[in-house]
């Protein structure tokens, strides 16, 4: 009996030590208050950009012109390696310029 208690206590101590060795966190899901505006190209924009970053990265950008958005989409593909086809890239750049560009 006493031996069983010792074994159980020892097990608890070991489990506790193992747990102290491990640190884990759970990250919150994406900010739901940063949804993209609806419109042509919104789906392509969401689905491709979503691979790497949440939409708050998009909606919080300054309102720059179509040329800047085109360059930004190109940068994501050519520099950061985003897997986006040429036609999708155009749809995305057009959508961003229209919805998040200069008025």
């Amino acid at each position, binding site marked *: 009996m006493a031996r069983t208690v010792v074994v159980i206590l020892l097990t608890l101590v070991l489990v506790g030590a*193992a747990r102290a*060795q*491990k*640190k*884990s*966190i*759970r*990250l*919150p*899901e*994406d*900010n*739901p*208050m*940063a949804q993209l505006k609806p419109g042509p190209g*919104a*789906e392509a924009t*969401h*689905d491709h950009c*979503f*691979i*790497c*970053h*949440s*939409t*708050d*990265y998009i909606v*919080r*950008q*300054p*309102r*720059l012109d179509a040329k*800047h958005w085109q360059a*930004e989409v190109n940068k994501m593909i050519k*520099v*950061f*390696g*985003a*897997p986006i086809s040429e036609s999708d890239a155009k749809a995305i750049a057009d959508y961003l310029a229209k919805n998040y560009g200069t008025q």
Partner: protein
Amino acid sequence: MASVAAGAGIWARGTPGGPGLAWAADANPLLAGRPLVRYPQKTDLILLTSRPPQLETPMKYFEQAITPNDAFYVRYHIYPPTEVDLSTWRLKVGGHVEHPIELSRDDLQGKFTRASVAAVNQCSGNGRGYFSPRVFGGQWANGAMGNAHWSGVRLRDILTTAGVKPGALDVTFDGLDEPASPSIPDFVKSLSVSRIMDDPDVLIAYQMNGQPLPLLNGFPARLIVPGWYSTYWVKNLSQITVLDHAFDGFWMRKAYLIPDTPCGCVEPGTAPAHAVPITRMKVRSFIISPEDGARVRVGRPITLKGIAFDAGYGIEEVAVSTDQGESWRRAQLGRDLGNYSFREWSFDWTARRAGVYRLMVRATNRAGESQATEPLWNPAGYMRNVIEHVDVRAE
């Protein structure tokens, strides 16, 4: 369209405009619409982006020279690790060395001389949101910085133990963070061997303000490069590789570049002819109290407080102007925690008449480097260090 589930976790606390959710600021347009969020091991911080996690420290924390661990800002480029098991985690040191080694955290703590430094960690793009003309990128206000006592092991001691072979040139640093897709470059940075061997303050830190680092600030160990922008301070470190050639990885050759000009700046809106990797921080200073938009009483003395820092020469002088920069008077410097640290300052002042006052602060370091009235500009929005101000109303 894929949708993101709302209403769970931290988002359950409220909806825009509704009760329960705290907002970063109503007065600062840059912070408008950005909620305060509480991530694991962190207190309420200002959300920049949720994925990758980028969280900004509210300015009130900078009234003290040391930033609490739970208030320290967070910035990842790719996905941070969500679990670290110290029983299996090893810091691997290899490449162009005599003896490749693998160090556990116990090895780091027990087998090397402990070293500490108080040092500012500041994002290259801190203050990018204030650039004019505006630039793309994380639209940080000024809270992508913090100062802590970092403790760990001198990197040069680790390299000496591994035995750097003749001809070694650069050393690369990789952490446990991972890109979302294999086509995206892993976050790897480099320092030259001479930069490491000449500087006893370049550390592998396993403690931050006497505690293990929060996971989102680099647990179990991160690189500390005092005086240099935090792009070099690789978090959740796992691999150190010594190279016999210059490192030409993405994050050194394509990202984090500044114009190759003395100021690191160009004519606003133009592109630089040549670009080089960003390194040393510029001199900065801030008024933290009173905060922008505060009301003060005519005839009642108050104490202005804030911090100043540079890249390691140390702060020589902090000066304050209460008349839009016409005249400047010296502030009192607080305790000296070391050349790489935030330096607290204070300044006693009484508003003599009713109206709006623009309070400005300007620091100068021991090398004579200071801050300008006109902001510098570069296409990536790096190295902001203009003279900052707050406006207060005296009544």
